[in-house]
């Protein structure tokens, strides 16, 4: 018995050691790859290219899909800001997902909307569409509003929009997200500039809007969030987008295009059946299915990311709402891994099966479990006096400094290429955040993830339904 236990202990120790080492190496690699990707982006004269595209008659048409549920407070200014995006050829589809407030009435009144007889081919099954509205004012001719029965999910609402979308590509966003005015131009470029592959999705960096200044849906001034929890999220987003997604994009291994903003190939998305309304992480789920579909049908595909921040979203500022969000994300991840496990290490799925999926499995899904078990074992060993404290603390210090370094590097890439924020001390403020992340923020995420896995295993009914969005302008005066 003793022998087996100590043998197990050694196996665990070594596995963990290798696990940790690989994780550190992957992050070092991502730092390098993201640097190459961002450098390429900043070296080509992007601004000039955007100007050319904005004035070109050959720009591909884009459809913006923005679902809205009880957004009465901000809907008008947000639709207005969508109407003023720089792009020569696009339509905006707002999907009113059975709002119980006056969202629909406001839209009708403000934009002179009338119900029209609209014929479309519903390739994806959704909750019934009640009516479709168009504006009688030619100034708003690019606007279309769908009024549908509440489907209790963003997925169902967006699917209704995909059915009606005219153009070959759709840009999915949330009506409470604030977009950069060049968003559509930026997202269209990677599609047009890809050499051999068919680009099925493009994403861009998201940021937390909490303390930044907005005026009627237009960004005035970027600021790091003053409150600690949103500031942790800002730092996390910079790391995950600027360093993570850009690194993956460089080798065409992007695991997820965030639900806040993404461009998708409509044809492929429709063939896949659109978003899955039973998924808790519908954005990642759709992308995984699209990639899988592309592999199954011999389409050489690419998913690309842009380092520039194009979308600002309200990050939860209370632990309660934050916990719901992260629990949901973790549950979505567990669902996804379970549903598509046949891709794991499956050479048929190329990079998807051999890199993206294993990485997500080991370092996203398992990480919270491993960390948690590690802590338990440490406590056990500590209590029984088997820990060499100086060594343990040294290892901990190493992990700590490494984590801070990686985050700082991602802030550095962001600063070198875009120089966001007005004052240097705002950046310094941001740079201090990772020092606390390890002790305050990270444990929260581990805990909420475990809770998400638990809900997944027990199949707990979700309670958040439509409440997932906490509304953005609500605090705005």
């Amino acid at each position, binding site marked *: 018995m003793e022998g087996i236990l100590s043998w197990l202990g050694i196996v665990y120790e070594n596995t963990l050691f290798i696990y940790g080492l690989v994780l550190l190496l992957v992050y070092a690699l991502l730092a390098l790859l993201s640097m190459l990707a961002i450098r390429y982006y900043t070296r080509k004269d992007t601004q000039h290219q955007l*100007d050319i595209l*904005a*004035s*070109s*008659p050959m*720009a591909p048409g884009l459809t913006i899909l923005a679902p809205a549920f009880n957004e009465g407070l901000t809907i008008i200014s947000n639709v*207005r*800001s969508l*109407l*003023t995006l*720089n*792009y*020569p*050829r696009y339509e905006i589809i707002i999907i009113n997902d059975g709002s119980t407030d006056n969202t629909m009435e406001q839209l009708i009144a403000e934009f002179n909307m009338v119900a029209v007889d609209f014929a479309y081919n519903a390739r994806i099954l959704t909750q019934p569409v009640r009516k479709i509205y168009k504006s009688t*004012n*030619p*100034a*708003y*001719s690019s606007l279309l509003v769908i009024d549908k029965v509440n489907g209790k999910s963003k997925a169902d609402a967006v699917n209704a929009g995909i059915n009606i979308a005219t153009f070959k590509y759709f840009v999915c966003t949330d009506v409470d997200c604030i977009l950069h*005015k060049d968003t559509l131009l930026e997202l269209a470029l990677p599609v047009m500039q890809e050499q051999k592959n068919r680009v099925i999705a493009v994403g861009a960096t998201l940021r937390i809007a909490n303390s930044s200044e907005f005026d*009627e849906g*237009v960004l005035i001034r970027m600021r790091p969030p003053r409150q600690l929890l949103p500031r942790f999220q800002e730092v996390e987003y910079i790391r995950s987008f600027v360093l993570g997604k850009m690194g993956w994009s460089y080798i065409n291994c992007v695991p997820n295009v965030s639900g806040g903003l993404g461009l998708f190939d409509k044809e492929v998305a429709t063939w896949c059946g659109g978003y899955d309304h039973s998924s808790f992480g519908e954005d990642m789920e759709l992308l995984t299915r699209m990639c899988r579909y592309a592999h199954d049908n011999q389409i050489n595909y690419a998913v690309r990311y842009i380092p520039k921040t194009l979308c600002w979203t309200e990050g939860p500022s209370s632990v309660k709402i934050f916990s719901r969000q992260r629990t949901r994300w973790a549950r979505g991840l567990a669902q996804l891994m379970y549903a598509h496990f046949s891709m794991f290490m499956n050479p048929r799925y190329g990079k998807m099966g051999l890199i993206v999926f294993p990485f997500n499995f080991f370092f996203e899904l398992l990480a919270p479990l491993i960390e948690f078990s590690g802590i338990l074992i440490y406590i056990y060993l500590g209590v029984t006096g088997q820990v060499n404290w100086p060594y343990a603390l040294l290892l901990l210090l190493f992990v700590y400094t490494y984590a801070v370094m990686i985050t700082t590097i991602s802030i550095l890439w962001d600063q070198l290429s875009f120089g966001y924020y007005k004052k240097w001390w705002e950046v310094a403020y941001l740079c201090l955040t990772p020092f606390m992340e390890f002790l305050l923020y990270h444990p929260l995420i581990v805990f909420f993830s475990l809770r998400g896995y638990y809900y997944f295993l027990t199949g707990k009914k979700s309670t958040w339904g439509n409440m997932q969005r906490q509304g953005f302008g609500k605090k705005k005066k």
Partner: protein
Amino acid sequence: MSKILLVEDDEIMPKIVARILSSAEYELDHVSNGKEAFEKLETANYGYDLIITDIMMPYANGFEILSRVKSQPSPIPVIIVSNAGNEDMIMEGFKLGADDFLKKPIIPAELLIRVKRLLMKNK
């Protein structure tokens, strides 16, 4: 003296236009987005003789400005100056009642002629 409102978010274009439409003959007001344009129009009680506007601008685009201006009891003539190369967009502008369209880059003399012609017509 004719009062002209220029709505343009480029920083150089207003300087050029200010020089083309000399201050001896025209009173030129410049705003750089749709919101300011509406504010200016409201405070002046739509008392402009001509509006020169771009299409793609923050807050409210050229189409909205056109639609608002043309729904007034005495519509102000509007010239669109834009780099839009998409014909649909230009057609849209004319549908909304734009009186003229000039594609950027413009020929200064041409702008002057068109401005004069429109002002004459509406005198």
